[in-house]
């Protein structure tokens, strides 16, 4: 804009500045209002609110008119998410799709130290890195692959001193080990951050298709995936039926109607009536929201919550869900008694694995903290890696005992680099964060034999001991590496067509199609 004189220009600048100040002030006021309404206001000299209006006034309930933001509804309305109420799955053994267990080791452990990668291209024989490269992932010259023979039991080479594999061996039977394979995706990820989109559990749940009869996602913590790391941003669906399954008590509580049955001589029909009434009253309320243009999909989600609650309260009994009452599982795990094995993270892995292989859940996430362990010394690091191995091993052993296949994916945020300090017999200690040396590990156990594999290592490392980021699209981006893990689950489960169609439905194309020789480690189940 041109101004006639300097005075006019200054005046225009002043007006613009004042308008900006007012707009900012209004924004701040709105933010303050929203913040204030988050907290109830219960004054000591006021009576406890009892009517709806008093509750609204106290912030225990909120009024609606003040805060309706059309732009947000418009935004939501523009996204065609197609939310549907989750339907109960088969629950039986016929045509059950293998379960998917996702384990997040938060903090960045060293998968490369467990399964030392080579620099070979996909499908060719293992080619060790330079000795100096292995020093950066935990092994001095006398322990480096090439000097020490790697073990090949799982197909993917592992170091004979790998604490993670030793942990698996602590708890897995010979028969279970014989049916287990491993694969790795060499890929960088960010250190010590929950921002890596490393959890594909929502996509995987939709790939699997037939929901668990109890849940679709068993979670370690509240949230979309049940883990700490960010979800893969494809086929996300908040309508998937999930619940936090922290321990057996939480699992039992999930399905126990409590007073709703016990006050009626343990007649579960009473709980059915209560759940149905809550649903009817909610539908009545939501009808009013609809009239005020509440997003239909949010409304559907809420109704699904009420419909699903009835099933949770009435269709299951705790004894059918629990590990401790399952005679196939309530026995020793090698040298460990059941009581020794069934604690902490191990117990959670066993609970989730049982849910998965019994068809009660489609997928599960366990997050285990404390893997930002660099600088804590070799002993602590070995203990943590071994503990992770026991968690993985117990999940696989449960699947073996139940005669079902299972896919376990292990991710971590970043990784570590090793230094000479604290080394024992040329086994080095992790000294610092280094996400350039990370990998995603995948384990599969078959029903009666090892799952068929095309190859075992996706991507490669370079002689410097880091991921070769110039090789594959999975090497350099955590999101695509995570998508590749979901792709391999789909192959393992015989659901590649569903993988394709889900990507297509989300406006994406399968980046691995035509490049199976580089990306498809698990052979398609037929």
């Amino acid at each position: 804009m041109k101004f006639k004189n300097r005075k006019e220009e200054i005046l225009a600048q002043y007006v613009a500045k004042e308008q900006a100040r007012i707009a900012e002030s209004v924004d701040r006021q709105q933010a303050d209002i929203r913040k204030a309404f988050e907290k109830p206001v219960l004054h000591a000299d006021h009576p406890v609110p009892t009517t709806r209006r008093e509750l609204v006034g106290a912030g225990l309930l909120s009024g609606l008119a003040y805060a309706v933001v059309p732009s947000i509804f418009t935004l939501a309305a523009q996204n065609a998410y197609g939310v549907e109420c989750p339907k109960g799955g088969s629950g039986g053994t016929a045509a059950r799709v293998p379960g998917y267990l996702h384990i997040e080791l938060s903090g960045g452990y060293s998968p490369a130290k467990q399964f030392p990668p080579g620099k070979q291209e996909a499908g060719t024989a293992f080619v060790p890195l330079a000795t100096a490269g292995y020093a950066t992932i935990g092994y001095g010259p006398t322990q480096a692959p090439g000097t020490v023979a790697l073990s090949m039991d799982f197909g993917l080479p592992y170091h004979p001193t790998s604490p993670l594999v030793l942990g698996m061996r602590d708890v897995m039977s010979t028969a279970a080990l014989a049916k287990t394979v491993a694969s790795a995706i060499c890929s960088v990820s960010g250190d010590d951050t929950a921002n890596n989109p490393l959890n594909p559990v929502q996509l995987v749940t939709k790939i699997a298709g037939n929901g668990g009869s109890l849940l679709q996602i068993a979670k370690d913590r509240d949230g979309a995936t049940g883990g700490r790391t960010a979800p893969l941003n494809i086929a996300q669906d908040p309508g998937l039926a999930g619940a936090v399954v922290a321990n057996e008590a939480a699992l039992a509580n999930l399905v126990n109607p409590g007073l709703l049955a016990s006050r009626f001589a343990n007649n579960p029909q009473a709980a059915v009536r209560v759940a149905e009434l809550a649903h009817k009253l909610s539908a009545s309320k939501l009808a009013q929201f609809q009239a005020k243009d509440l997003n239909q999909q949010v409304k559907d989600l809420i109704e699904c919550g009420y419909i699903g609650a009835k099933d949770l309260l009435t269709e299951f009994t705790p004894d059918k869900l629990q590990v401790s009452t399952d005679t196939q599982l309530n026995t020793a795990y090698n040298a460990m008694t059941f009581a020794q094995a069934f604690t902490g993270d191990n117990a959670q892995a066993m609970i989730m694995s049982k849910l998965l292989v019994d068809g009660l859940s489609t997928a599960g996430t366990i997050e285990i903290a404390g893997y930002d362990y660099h600088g804590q010394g070799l002993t602590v690091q070995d203990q943590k890696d071994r503990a992770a191995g026991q968690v993985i091993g117990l999940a696989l052993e449960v699947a073996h005992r139940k005669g079902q296949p299972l896919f376990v994916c292990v991710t971590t945020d970043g990784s570590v680099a090793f230094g000479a300090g604290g080394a024992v017999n040329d086994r080095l200690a992790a000294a610092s964060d280094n996400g350039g040396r990370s990998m995603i590990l995948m384990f599969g156990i078959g029903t009666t034999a090892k799952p068929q594999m095309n190859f075992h290592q996706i991507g490669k490392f370079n002689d410097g001991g880091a991921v070769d980021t110039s090789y594959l699209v999975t090497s350099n981006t955590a999101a695509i590496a995570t998508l590749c893990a979901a792709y391999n689950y789909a192959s393992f489960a015989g659901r590649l067509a569903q993988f394709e169609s889900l990507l297509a439905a989300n406006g994406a194309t399968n980046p691995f199609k035509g490049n199976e020789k580089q990306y498809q480690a698990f052979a398609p189940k037929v």
Partner: protein
Amino acid sequence: MLTSSKSLAIFGLVLTSTLYVGCSSKKVSKPSINTATTGQGTGDGTSTPVGAGEDESDPVVNPLDKVEALSSSFGLLNFRRLTGTFQALTGVTLANQTVMTAYNAQLSSLPRDPAPAQISAAKVSAATKLAAQYCDVMATTPTLLSAKFPGLSLTAAPADSMAFAKTLIDGFYGPEHALQGVRATDIASVAATVDALKALNGTGPAIFMASCAATLASAEFFLY
């Protein structure tokens, strides 16, 4: 790099999910993850010092997260607001040991996030069972019952289901109508449930507890 045009299509899509971490990435082939100090691909072993730059906090809000996209000014009561609301409606406090026990049992399943898309059957179920405990104490504590519903007797199953339902709904909903479901419809729904519970040989306190729990756990109160 082994890739294709198809690869790049999906690459571009999923890349958006990582852009928010703040790593500028003008070239498609660069990862947009926070690895600037990790030395990836160089094998030089350089890295961040022990303990530096650690972020053990919860994930930052992903602007493309679907739950976030479905967010609105409507929301779920979180566990604290839910108990506050139940307390205000029934007069029962967390000082009551049985309620406190029920609260602790349900806590991990109750909402923490107000986003309505975070609702689940497990959360509704947990809220219903917690409400049942509040309502049970109310039903068996005459002073609390008479304070909220003067004259209501639970010595026997309600003889007049419709009248009982009207007392219940009017008492809990209060005089406000604008934001609620149709009052007559809701009263009829409660009355039908009372009839069904009577058929299950429910006692007066049990029928009150069950009807009260369903009402308190409904979207009328769970959703704000």
